[in-house]
């Protein structure tokens, strides 16, 4: 298997505070890799570093042959990395259709992409003219994912997509992630709770103090849930 995305010794700072310390990670083609760790461990920063929103001070982030650290923040998505940020962060005053349009414009995708994304989330089709800020939490999450999928990305970054959603909605999000894996999309999934990731992840990377402690196959975790306690402290 080849790597879709590789982070090598990435150091990231907010001002003088170092958040990522020699962070390394390898995302394989077509897998769902879960990033698990406590609050403030650097999960979100790792995703922002990939997107170029928090430019790393040192280290390399390779998407295939492209070094993403050499690109500006608006070129990273054009290279094929899509981001679903924590808290969804829709353009809340814009309509559903306009949010999707922004996604499509990123890589100049057209009607076909729009249709296939809307087929994935039929609820959104009925609400195209609605202001996205007035959608329910679950619908907003679907729109955030739809907006990202309009890039037809090779790599998808999901930051706590199930946060604050009801169980039926969590199941829908999970199904979507699994469906995307079938299509060959490689996904990094950030979560705080291990039960949210066990059903969908292929591998789990534990992150602590801005470092990658270990990366395990999900089978080993299923077989021995105590491992999680050792790495994260809380389940």
């Amino acid at each position, binding site marked *: 298997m080849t790597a879709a995305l590789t982070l090598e010794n990435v150091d990231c700072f907010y001002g003088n505070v170092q958040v990522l310390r020699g962070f390394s990670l390898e995302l394989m083609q077509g897998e769902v890799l879960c990033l698990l760790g406590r609050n403030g461990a650097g999960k979100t920063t790792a995703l922002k570093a990939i*997107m*170029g*929103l928090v430019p790393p001070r040192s280290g390399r982030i390779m998407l295939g042959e492209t070094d993403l650290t050499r690109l*500006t*923040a*608006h*070129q*990273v*998505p*054009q290279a094929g990395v899509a*981001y679903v*940020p924590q808290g969804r*962060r829709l*353009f*809340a*005053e*814009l309509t559903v259709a*306009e949010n999707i*349009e*922004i*996604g499509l*414009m*990123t*890589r100049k995708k057209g009607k076909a992409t729009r249709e296939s994304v809307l087929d994935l989330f039929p609820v959104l089709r009925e609400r195209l003219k609605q202001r996205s800020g007035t959608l329910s939490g679950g619908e907003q999450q679907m729109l955030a994912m739809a*907006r990202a999928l309009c*890039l037809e990305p090779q790599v998808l970054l999901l930051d706590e997509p199930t946060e604050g959603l009801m169980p039926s909605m969590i199941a829908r999000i999970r199904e979507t992630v699994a469906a995307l894996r079938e299509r060959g999309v490689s996904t990094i999934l950030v979560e705080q709770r291990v039960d949210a990731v066990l059903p969908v992840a292929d591998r789990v990377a534990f992150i602590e103090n801005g470092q990658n402690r270990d990366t395990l196959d999900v089978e080993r975790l299923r077989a021995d849930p105590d491992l999680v306690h050792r790495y994260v402290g809380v389940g």
Partner: protein
Amino acid sequence: MAFGPYLLLATLEGLVMAAVLALTALGLSLVFGVMRVVNVAHGEFFMLGAVLAWWVSSLVSGNPAIGFLLALIVSPLIVGAVALVSERLVLRRLDYKPEATIVATIGLLYIIQQLVLTFYGPEARPVVAPFDFRIRLPWFGYSSYKLAVIAASILLVLATWFVLTRTKIGLVMRATQYDGEIAQAFGVPVDRVYAGVFALGAMLAAVAAVLIVPIQQAHYLMGLDPLLLSFIVVIIGGLGSLRGTVVAAVLIGLSDGIISVFFSPTLAKIIATSFVALVLVFRPQGLFGAETR
């Protein structure tokens, strides 16, 4: 003259003022809305537009309409270029930090003002209107050019609205205004959007100035009033709200026109600024502004 026609005259004068004000304030509002930059030099872009209009029209002899139309195109373009250069050289290097950009644009205000004083001089100079037949109303004659200013302003506001709400460029601008970081994550070169918006804002002020110079002469200190009134309009209407800006411009323009005619211009300014104070106390987001995120 009876009260009715007198009121009509005052209303027309107020509408001319509202028209020019709406354009100028729209530029200020756009820059603040998208970039969160309070552009204190906005009035100087207005003044520069007027002075350049005089310069361009003075280069052309013959029919005054030719010189005016040329000024209407050339002057905003030059002002836009000046704004673009100042954005690249100054604002971008300050990382668009709110406090720093206020101080920097104050500096820009003086630089532009003093350069104009040096090269254009302290005189007030008129630009001849492209046409100026009087429309005969039953009670008084009124300048057709002034009515044309109102019409042109309405067209330009509608055009701005169309660009903002119906085009891809407008969509990108609104997305940047709402969340610049996420806009970047969707391939929007926020940096270039900022530069474009700053230039566009200055050009709106310049167009307004070109429209007004045949009525009010070009002078190197003429930028102060539009700046003050634009701030008043933008605060009352709600920063970043296009509708609010237009409504507030009409409100302030009309009240200024009517009160100036019946009482005094000073009273008009007093009332406008008191209204700002009331809005700030009771509805800080402005009449049409959305609540802060």
